[in-house]
């Protein structure tokens, strides 16, 4: 038997092949030159050259969000790694499985303040699920295997593998373990049957039940199970920002998003329910507001989550069920079907009537006299023109909330945004990751004139890789969400929130080889979108610069630190 001895760099490539990686998002540099030389000589995956390492990680992150597979980014040492940190932290906050391979200075130079040296493992430690520094060429295979395994299992997250340059030049036999078992890491999959039965008992006897689901349902591919269970029980349901698409928005039981900019009916139902089922969600500050206020109305809470640390973190849970959300929901469905009498439905009829009254508040209506472009209307038209079936990425701010509010998602993994870290600049690289994963699908990046400038250089990457993303720029010449807070809470003192000296986005798009359109009249919204998504422009990136109403605010709004039911509605806004 002959064993094949290859370089560390080649081993890295073989590992990625074993993991069926299709795209590596990266940027070369000194410490990863050996790896890039090996990439040059292979054909199994495509390397996507970004224009800034932050975008490499964002694009890998979006690829994972859209497909469910592990995304891969490759960066060099020092500044390559530090530029990647924003991307890594973004993925970490939203529990996205990605593997980041970073180059490091040669082993003998570590600690000597070498050129482009930084303590990558130290810097990234607080914002990864786990990280490794490879010190021996023989360890590359098992380390990368562990990285993919850790990223994708349990509560997913980013895993970084730091490889010194000399290690990629040394040679060893390529060994890739088939399976990995770690004595210190055994995530629970199956939920506890006793807890499941207790939960079901509570649910079927609830008079005012409510379901609240988050990003865990999307990540855990549990949308079908959740939808079936909620339909069986005929319960009302809300999704978090990260959970949108986890339950079909067009279903009558869906109350819209909850939280700081959630609907009146969703927030009221969260506050007033007697039994709450939380699935793959974490009761964060933007979702339930002030926990004391939230619990002021007594309620029993059931919480299904893969991460034990998410349970009872901000809110005390009555019935925790730790496990894979999909498996737990399937167990709940079987247990419910096994019950002889399914007559529980009548118990909450009054409650559904109450919710219908809340819906009549019509909290999402907005004033539109047709004189100026209303951002909400742009999103509504985007939904119409794309038949509600596009991948929608967003940046962070008002436009993000409007996209979440006015583009109802019926499928999971279609809404791609930075929920936890709230990273401005993700929109365009996120759109790149989605478009590469689904070249024949419509991909729109909903953004603002502030956010888009944080990763604008990626227009160049889009040109190189022919990514026909449609950029919907809601241009209000303000950092809109900052301006909104300054208007509400800082006496209209608009400190540094005005975007002065904006570029001509049409010319900018054209200079990168794309198509730019400036839309200033409300009556032109639909025509412009239709043209951008027309077969004629199917192969082209189109930058749609919508000049919108500068004064528009996002409603409803729960002010920071307030309770969920203490919403400011659009109608009340004049009293502020």
């Amino acid at each position: 038997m002959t064993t094949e001895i290859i370089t560390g760099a080649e081993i890295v490539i073989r590992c990625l092949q074993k993991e069926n990686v299709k795209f590596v998002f990266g940027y070369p540099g000194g410490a990863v030159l050996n790896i890039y030389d090996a990439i040059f000589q292979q054909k199994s995956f495509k390397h996507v050259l970004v224009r800034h390492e932050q975008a490499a990680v964002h694009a890998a992150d979006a690829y994972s969000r859209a497909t469910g597979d592990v995304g891969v980014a490759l960066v060099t040492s020092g500044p390559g790694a530090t530029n990647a940190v924003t991307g890594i932290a973004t993925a970490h906050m939203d529990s996205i499985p990605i593997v980041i391979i970073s180059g490091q200075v040669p082993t003998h130079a570590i600690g000597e303040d070498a050129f482009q040296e930084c303590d990558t493992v130290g810097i990234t430690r607080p914002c990864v699920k786990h990280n490794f520094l490879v010190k021996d060429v023989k360890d590359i295979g098992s380390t990368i295997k562990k990285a993919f395994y850790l990223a994708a299992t349990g509560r997913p997250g980013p895993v970084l593998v730091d490889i010194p340059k000399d290690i990629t030049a040394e040679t060893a036999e390529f060994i890739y373990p088939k399976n990995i078992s770690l004595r210190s890491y055994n995530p629970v999959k199956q939920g506890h049957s006793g807890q499941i039965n207790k939960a079901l008992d509570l649910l079927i006897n609830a008079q005012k039940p409510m379901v609240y689901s988050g990003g865990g349902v999307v990540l855990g591919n549990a949308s079908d199970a959740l939808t079936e269970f909620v339909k069986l029980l005929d319960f009302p349901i809300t999704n978090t920002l990260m959970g949108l698409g986890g339950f079909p928005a067009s279903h009558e039981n869906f109350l819209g998003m909850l939280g700081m900019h959630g609907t009146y009916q969703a927030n009221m139902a969260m506050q007033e329910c007697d039994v709450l089922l939380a699935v793959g969600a974490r009761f964060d500050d933007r979702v339930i507001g002030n926990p004391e206020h939230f619990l002021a109305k007594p309620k029993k809470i059931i919480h299904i989550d893969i991460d034990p640390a998410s349970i009872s973190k901000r809110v005390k849970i009555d019935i925790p069920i730790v496990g894979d959300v999909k498996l737990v929901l399937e167990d709940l469905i079987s247990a419910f079907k096994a019950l002889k009498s399914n007559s529980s439905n009548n118990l909450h009829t009054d409650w559904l009537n109450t919710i219908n009254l809340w819906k009549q508040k019509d909290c999402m209506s907005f004033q539109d006299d047709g004189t100026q472009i209303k951002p909400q209307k742009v999103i509504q038209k985007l939904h119409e023109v794309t038949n509600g079936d596009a991948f929608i990425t967003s940046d962070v701010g008002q436009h993000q909330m409007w996209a979440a509010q006015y583009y109802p998602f019926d499928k999971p993994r279609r809404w791609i945004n930075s929920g936890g870290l709230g990273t401005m600049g993700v929109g365009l690289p996120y759109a790149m990751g989605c478009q590469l994963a689904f070249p024949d699908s419509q991909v729109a990046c909903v953004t603002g004139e502030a956010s888009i400038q944080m990763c604008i250089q990626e227009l160049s990457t889009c040109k190189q890789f022919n990514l026909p993303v449609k950029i919907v720029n809601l241009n209000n010449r303000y950092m809109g969400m900052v301006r909104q807070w300054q208007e509400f809470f800082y006496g209209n003192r608009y400190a540094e929130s005005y975007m002065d000296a904006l570029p001509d986005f049409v010319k900018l798009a054209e200079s990168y080889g794309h198509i730019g359109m400036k839309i200033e009249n409300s009556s032109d919204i639909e025509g412009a979108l239709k043209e951008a998504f027309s077969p004629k422009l199917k192969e082209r990136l189109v930058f749609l610069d919508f000049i919108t109403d500068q004064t528009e605010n996002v409603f409803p709004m729960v002010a920071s630190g307030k309770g969920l039911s203490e919403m400011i509605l659009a109608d009340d806004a004049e009293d502020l």
Partner: protein
Amino acid sequence: MRHIISLLMENEAGALSRVSGLFSARGYNIESLSVAPTEDQSLSRMTIVTSGSAQIIEQIIKQLNKLIDVVKVLDLHDGDHIERELVLVKVKANKQYRDEVQQLTNSYGGRIIDSSENILTIEFTGTSTEIDNYLKSLNNSFVVEIVRTGASGIGRGDRILKI
């Protein structure tokens, strides 16, 4: 409330900073932390003295368990346990104070492990409270240096932290 948490973790480079980083990142208290290899070379044992409400301690245990390198975590306060800490104290011991220090140390069960003309060095082992009490009994103006190890702990009887 004060808790002593014992844990076993993979003896990897950076393991200690993963634990200390967790405490600082999440704003948990840390009174003392001691770490050393175990009889199994692949494992380190760490003892952390911390304090917080029941809810915070529950989160600390969960967050520690979530660290990939942590193999096992035990809150010693969940059952009977023994706690010991070592202190080394250096005191100025001129003729008049020398006898007093020797007597005091004997009565507490400490040992004088080094003595020179003007200085006595004392070793004392006990619970952290016993150490506090012993140190309080010494005349402050004679104490020149104190080194405490931080507490170590172990379960009583058949309460064993092992993999």
